[in-house]
Structures are given as structure tokens and as C-alpha cells.
């Protein structure tokens, strides 16, 4: 009985938790509730994933209003995959958050932070689960607005500036999206995504559809932080509280990529509806530039968090590159990298949060000889860094394998060169940390001082996941391939 309402529970539980946390006005209770909610969310997401594996797409009519009139929650191979990713990362980050937040945020704001966290989680899960274009916008705004607040809670004053910058860019993105959806509604008379896809084929007038495509693509690219629309990202990730950076780095941009995938393949059906439009080529080109340029910037960064943030911009390039290549292996790479990069980058931000806590700084110059003080943390950074590079045996390798395969199949040799270059640049910026932490003489005290266990253990769980999902790909890769095949069938 209750199993039939899983799709609603996925979103409603965090949504209700947020006001409850505010009412209780207790940081500790807020953390407890948020953690419980995130774990519940993970259970629900896994159950949904398994049901989709067994029985195919689940359609859930919100309030029993039948689609396309009512709001439909639609859980298919792709959305269930994203749900698992988002709820998994939330469930791992929250236990970590307690001590990290306690150290970084004034205690009178803790309950607000956890309320916002629950809202953000609700928004992200909502985006992934809903089958309604306008509902996506609503959840996008819920996650974004709470995201701005979360970032602004960072103790560094630059956090305010970054949050404001993100707010401006994010609002432009959301507005573009809703304009695009408005145009599509104008042409098709429906907001239900599946319905829209079928009706769009009958639309004669192409120009408004083109305009919609342009608005939606650009709007979402802002949210994705696709180069060159990425300028909000480094500041936001670098100055937000560590736990927030960790959660957002793994989820926010990924969910926006999910929406883009939905629209490009599910609604517009790139090749058929809009022949002759060089959309995929542009996407490929921008991704390639992102992979090289952002990696170069990361190579020059002195602040470890900013280094990781620029690395994120580059890695988002991997995801959109697969999308741009547009064949099964490319899309598989995109989807699997949502997961692989989500896990890898969250692990890294969590570990760096521990470094910020103990070393008091994330400037590389201040971290000389850190491996003697925090050997477990530093080794974790190295392992997750290897996944970032794409060394075999790590999750990142699985992505790279499919990306290169996809580029070779498409006959795009220059893309292969870009991928190779980008992974070498990744090796270079990861090794900057290795040299500083392992091969420089420490300037300060060298007493062993690891981050507290409640921070270290969740982070290492994800580090282990970076290795595990590089060897056992039966979940990550199989799920991604199902999603990719589904998307391409939708495009046909």
C-alpha cells in the first residue's frame, strides 16, 4: 500500500521536514531530523530504483489527478538513477555535516541551515521525479533559493558575494527556462513532459519551438555551469560551508544536466525535430573547451577548494561532452559520470572540509607536509584524486572508457585528444596536492591530528565508493546504460 506512494514520499518527507525543523528551532534536533529524512529518502530511492528495474516506468498521479491534467510523477530508468545519486549523497553528507557545520556556522543559525538543507534536497529530488515541465521549474527554484541561503551561510565574507552572484546567474537561468516552457506550452497546450513530446511532433510552426529550445538550453546551461556560463560556481563552492560545498558539488549541477537530457532527448528529440541545427556540435565544442581551460585554471589555483571547483567545471565538461557526442556510449558516459563524479567530488570536498577544520586553511602553501598530520585524510584525497584523473580501477576510468569509445565511434579524433589532455591536466593538478602534502617539509607542528571520525568515516565511505564503482559497475554502469538507451529511443 505505502509502496504505491513512494514517489510522493520521496519529495513530501523532506518538504515537511523543513518547516518542522524551523518550528523546533534546535540545531541538534534539526540535524537529527534532516539526517533521518535523508536516510529515509535513500531507502525510498533505492526501492524505486529496484521497482523500475523490475516493472519498468512508474507513473504516479499526484492527488489522483490523471495526467496530463494533473501533475504526474514519473520514475523511469534515468530519474530513478538520479534519485539514488542525490539521496545517497545527502545521506552521506548529513552525518558528516554535524561537526563540520558546528565549526563553521554560528550555532544560532544551525536549525536554519538544516531546514534549508532539507528544502534543497526536496527541490533536487523533485526535479528528478516530476514529469511536469512547470513543476520542474518550481522545484528548480526551491533548490536554488535554498542553495543561495546555504552558500551565504559560509563564514567567509566572500560567501555573501558568491551567493549573490549565484543568485543573479541562477535567476537568469531559471527565468530563461520558464520562458522556454511557456513557449512550449503555447505551442502544445500541455505541460506534461511525455504529452509534450508526442504533441510536439505535430507542431507545424518551428520558430517558437526553436526559441524555446534556445531559452531552455541556455537557461539550463547556466544552472549546469557549462563553460563559459560557469563563473558562479568556483566562488559558490569555495566559500560555502564545507558540508554544503560537498553536497552541492555532487548534486546541483548533476540534476540540471538531468533536466537538459530530458529536454534534449525526451522532448526535442535532437536529430529528428531539429535537423540541421548544430546544437550537439556546439555542446561538444564548449565541453571540450571547458575540459581543457578549466583544468588549466585549476592547475594555477592556490586554494584547494577553488582548485576542486574549477576541476568540477572541467568534469561537467566530461558529462556534457558525452551528451554532445550523442551516441549510446556517449550518453552512457554522461549518465554514469553524473554518478561517478558526484561520488568523487563529494568525497574530495568532504575531505577538504576536514583539512579546513584542522589546518585552518585551504591554501596549498599552508598545507606543506600535511600528510604527516593527517595521513588518512591525505591518502583519501589521493585515491579520490585518482578517480578524478581516471586511473583504471577507479570510477572515473569507467566514464573515460566510454567517452573515448564514443568519440572513436563518432570518428571525432580531436575529442579523443581533448579527453587525454584533460586527464593529464587532472593528473597535474591532483599531483600539486600530493607534492605539497607528501614531499614538502612541514612548517608547523607535525602531531597527528585527523578530522573527527564522524567526518572522516562518511568521506572515506565515498572514497571507497570511488574504487568500488571502478571495479564493480553492475549498478552504476548498467543503470546508466539503461537510461541512455531509453533516452535514445525517446529521441527516435
Amino acid at each position, binding site marked *: 500500500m505505502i509502496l504505491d506512494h513512494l514517489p510522493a514520499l520521496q519529495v513530501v518527507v523532506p518538504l515537511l521536514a523543513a518547516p518542522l525543523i524551523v518550528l523546533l528551532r534546535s540545531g541538534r534536533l534539526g540535524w537529527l531530523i534532516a539526517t533521518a529524512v535523508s536516510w529515509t529518502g535513500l531507502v525510498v530511492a533505492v526501492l524505486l530504483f529496484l521497482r523500475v528495474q523490475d516493472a519498468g516506468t512508474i507513473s504516479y498521479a499526484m492527488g489522483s489527478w490523471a495526467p496530463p491534467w494533473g501533475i504526474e510523477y514519473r520514475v523511469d530508468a534515468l530519474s530513478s538513477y538520479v534519485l539514488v545519486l542525490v539521496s545517497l549523497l545527502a545521506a552521506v553528507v548529513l552525518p558528516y555535516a554535524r561537526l563540520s557545520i558546528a565549526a563553521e556556522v554560528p550555532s544560532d543559525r544551525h536549525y536554519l541551515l538544516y531546514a534549508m538543507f532539507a528544502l534543497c534536497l526536496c527541490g533536487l529530488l523533485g526535479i528528478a521525479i516530476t514529469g511536469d515541465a512547470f513543476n520542474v521549474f518550481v522545484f528548480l527554484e526551491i533548490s536554488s533559493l535554498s542553495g543561495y541561503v546555504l552558500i551565504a551561510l559560509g563564514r567567509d565574507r566572500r560567501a555573501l558575494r558568491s551567493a549573490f552572484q549565484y543568485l543573479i546567474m541562477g535567476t537568469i537561468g531559471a527565468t530563461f527556462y520558464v520562458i522556454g516552457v511557456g513557449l512550449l506550452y503555447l505551442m502544445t497546450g500541455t505541460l506534461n513532459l511525455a504529452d509534450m513530446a508526442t504533441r510536439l511532433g505535430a507542431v507545424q510552426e518551428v520558430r517558437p519551438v526553436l526559441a524555446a529550445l534556445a531559452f531552455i538550453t541556455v537557461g539550463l546551461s547556466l544552472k549546469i555551469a557549462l563553460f563559459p556560463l560557469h563563473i558562479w560556481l568556483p566562488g559558490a563552492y569555495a566559500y560555502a560551508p564545507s558540508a554544503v560545498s560537498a553536497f552541492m558539488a555532487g548534486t546541483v549541477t548533476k540534476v540540471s544536466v538531468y533536466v537538459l537530457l530530458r529536454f534534449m532527448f525526451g522532448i526535442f528529440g535532437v536529430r529528428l525535430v531539429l535537423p540541421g541545427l548544430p546544437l550537439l556540435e556546439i555542446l561538444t565544442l564548449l565541453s571540450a573547451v571547458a575540459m581543457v581551460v578549466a583544468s588549466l585554471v585549476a592547475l594555477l589555483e592556490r586554494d584547494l577548494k577553488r582548485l576542486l571547483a574549477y576541476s568540477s567545471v572541467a568534469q561537467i565538461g566530461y558529462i556534457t561532452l558525452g551528451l554532445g557526442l550523442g551516441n549510446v556510449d556517449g550518453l552512457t558516459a554522461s549518465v554514469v559520470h553524473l554518478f561517478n563524479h558526484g561520488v568523487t567530488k563529494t568525497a574530495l570536498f568532504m575531505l577538504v572540509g576536514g583539512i579546513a577544520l584542522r589546518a585552518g586553511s585551504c591554501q596549498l602553501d599552508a598545507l606543506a607536509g600535511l600528510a604527516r598530520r593527517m595521513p588518512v585524510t591525505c591518502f583519501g584525497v589521493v585515491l579520490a584524486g585518482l578517480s578524478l584523473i581516471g*586511473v583504471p580501477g577507479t570510477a572515473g576510468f569507467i566514464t573515460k572508457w566510454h567517452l573515448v*569509445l564514443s568519440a572513436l*565511434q563518432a570518428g571525432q579524433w580531436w575529442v579523443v585528444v581533448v579527453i587525454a*589532455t584533460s586527464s593529464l591536466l587532472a*593528473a597535474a593538478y591532483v599531483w600539486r596536492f600530493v607534492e605539497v602534502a*607528501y614531499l614538502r617539509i612541514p612548517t608547523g607542528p607535525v602531531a597527528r591530528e585527523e578530522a573527527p571520525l564522524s567526518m572522516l568515516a562518511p568521506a572515506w565511505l565515498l572514497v571507497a565508493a570511488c574504487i568500488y564503482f*571502478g*571495479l564493480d559497475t553492475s549498478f552504476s554502469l548498467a543503470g546508466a546504460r539503461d537510461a541512455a538507451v531509453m533516452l535514445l529511443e525517446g529521441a527516435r
Partner: protein
Amino acid sequence: MTAQHLMLLAMVAPVLGALGVSLAQRSPNLRETLSFVAAGIALVCVLLLVPEVYAGGRPEIVLFEILPGVALAFRLEPLGMLFALVAAVLWPVSTLYSIGYMRGNDESHQTRFFACFALAIACTLGIAFSANLLTLFLFYEVLTLITYPLVTHHQDEEARKAGRVYLGFLLGSSLSLMLIAIIATWMMAGTVEFTPGGVLGADISNAAIGGLLALFIFGIGKAAVMPFHRWLPAAMVAPTPVSALLHAVAVVKAGVFSVVKVVIYIFGVERIAGLSSVDWLPFVTGFTIIAASVVALRSDNLKRRLAYSTISQLSYVVLAAALLTPLSIIGAALHIVSHAVGKITLFFAAGAIYTAAHKTKVSELDGIAKRMPWTMAAFTVGALSLIGIPPAAGFYSKWYIVLGAAEGGHWTALAVLGASTLLNAAYFLPIIYVAYFCAPADDGHGREHGEAPWPMVAAMVITATGVLALFFGMEFPLALARQLVSL
């Protein structure tokens, strides 16, 4: 115990050894004992596997699928058997040597050293046993990473720079070229399994094969074919036992082993023999052989001379594989063995000279044989083997490579081999000459020294004896190598 168990145990024993070494940090004697125990177990396992492979068995382990259709899997065949034997036999010997060296030179971080050393051996055995390109690639990359702490052992500016060159060349070549080659193989052939006769179908064009071969040859940076050779001299900043076992045996041999394995089991000797797109390779390797020998000739630093000699000798193996005749393939396999034993002896001697006399330059070795007779005797045996003079093992492998070149009518290769032999003699014989026949120069300190600590001398004597013994007992590796070409 079945062969599968033995294979797993051989790979797991060094890993457990490394674990034990890390835990026994406080008691050096226990720690070293654990290294020996692990080395002993691995050696026994590998030795017990020999009869099975000799009789034609190809024991196989499939652990789990990493990518759809590609599993983490191991399959033992004659070439891998030979390589595993080399690594497993020389590991305990060099452990003995390392103990003398590390203690004699008061090196720091000895626990990390022995732990990484053991893990490197585990990776080497993983490479030797691998059943497909992905498994090989996995262990190949881990081997690069696990040897990085060994190269940067001294943790100073010099080590940091060398570490960059080391990783830059090895990761750079493999993560770009080799990975692309593997994925291209997968795309063209639909499999990356090592298959006798190769996996490339008749529909694959001549040009594609040539391109793929280039990607493999240069992508496998550990084979140090020029211009991807710079990491090897850079790695000489490491303590000498590292240079000896890893950068004369395990790591570099992992490179040439991979090349030979790819040529035999991915391309297929008969499939690509005579193709116009692959006949550039003997010239590239020939150039490497000559150029590296010339650099060796001009190097006064002993370890650097040995490093360039290694580069040159590695290209012997690649050249032999590239000649694509049955006899040269046998030569390639044998040269992996004979060069390993000879070169480790030479590095052992260089390290002993450094430990006992603190000398690193060839020009300082006048008359040193009077003080270090055992060391120089071992050095002489190793040098003779590398030049290819009987009764040393190197003669045999060189003989087969020459036969292969003659069989294929490859006169350039013959000329290269001849010239290189002269060059080898030119850079080794003067060392032997001055050590035995020149009067020791007064180094200003008037410091007296004798031999290096006994474990180092013992290790050298063992490997030098091995060089001679291999000459007389070559039938046995030869029998394994013959299975490669089913003669």
C-alpha cells in the same frame, strides 16, 4: 592446491607481506623477516606453477566483470610464466640486498620502502598473469603509482623533480596513448582478451594496424622506446635497490613484456608479418638501441650509464618482437630473462660501490677491484652477459635475436645488433679495465674500505651465479619460449 589458487596466492602474498611490513614498523628484524616470508611464498607458488604451464596448461581465473564483456581475469601462458619467474626469483634476492643497502646507508622510511616494494611485486605478478588488456592496464597503472613513493624516497627537491618526470612520462603515455589503443582494439576487434594468433580480424586495414601498433609501442612508456625514455634516468634518484629490481627488472620488463604480449596475443605475429604499416618499428627501436648506447658511453655517472644501457637493452626486446619471426620472438622472451639477471647484478654492484666507497662515477673506480673483489667479479659477469659473451646468459638471447633477424633477412637489424654489441663493449670494458688494472687514485680522504655489507655481497654472488647458470641451463626457459611460437 589448484593452479588457480597458486596464482592468487602468488599475488596476494606480497600484498599481505606489505600489510605485515607496515604493521611491524617498530621491529625491523621482524619486518624484514615478513618480507622474506612473503617473497618465499610467492616464489614457491610461481615455481609450483611451472610444470603445469610446461605441460601446456593455461590456468585461468575470472574474478568479476569490470565492463560488460571485460572481466578482471588472469590466464597463465608461457611468456607470463617466464616474466613471473624472473620477478619472483629476483624479489627475495633483492630483499636480501635491500636490507644491506638500506641499513648500510641509514636510509629513512624503511617501512614504507619495503611495503611499496612488496606491492610493486604484486602488481608485476598481476601484469604477468593478466588475461586481457584491461587487467594488464589496471596493474600497469597501479605499478606506476606504487613505485612513485620509491622514486621520491628522499623527499627532497631532486626527488620531487624526478618524480614529476617519472609520472609525467609514464602516466602521460599510458593514460593517453595506451588507453586509446586499448579502447580502439576493443572497438575494432570487440574483445581485448589475449588470444593466441591475435584478435584483429581480416577486415581491419593495414593503416589502422600501423596506427594501433604505434599507439601501443609509444603508449607503453615503461618499454622506454625513444622519445618516451626520459623517465628511466630520472628514476635513478631512487635508492639503488629500487633501480635494481624495479627499474632494471620489474617495471621496465613490465613494459617490454606488455609489448611482446600485445604483439603476440593482440596483433598476432602471422597476422601482421609482412605488413607495410608495421615495418617502421625495427628502425625506431634500432635508433633507440644505438642512441641510448651512445649516451651511456658518454655518461660518467655509473647509475646513469646503467640506466641508458637498460633503455638500449629494452629496445632489443622490442626490436626482436618487431622482427616478427619465430626465432626472434623466442629471442625477445629469453632476453627479458637474461637481461633482468644481468642488469640486476650490475645495479647491485653499483649500489655496493656506493655503499662501501661512496663513489658514483666511473672515473673514480680506478683499482677498486682490489678492495671489492667480489663486487667487481659480479660486475664483470653481468657486463659480459650484457655484451653477449659466453658463458653468460646474454649470449643466448642475443643469438636468437640475431638468428631471427637473419631469418627475416633484416639486414638493418643485424647491423644495429652488431654496432650495439661493440658499443656495449665500449662502455662496459673500460670500467672493468680500470677497476682491475689501474692503480687506485688517492681520493684525498685516504679512506679505507672493503666490501659492502655481507647481504649485498651475497645477493650479488647469487645473481652473478644465476647469469652463468642460465647459460648452461637455458634449455628450460627456451622450452617455455618455444611454446610461444609452437615450434
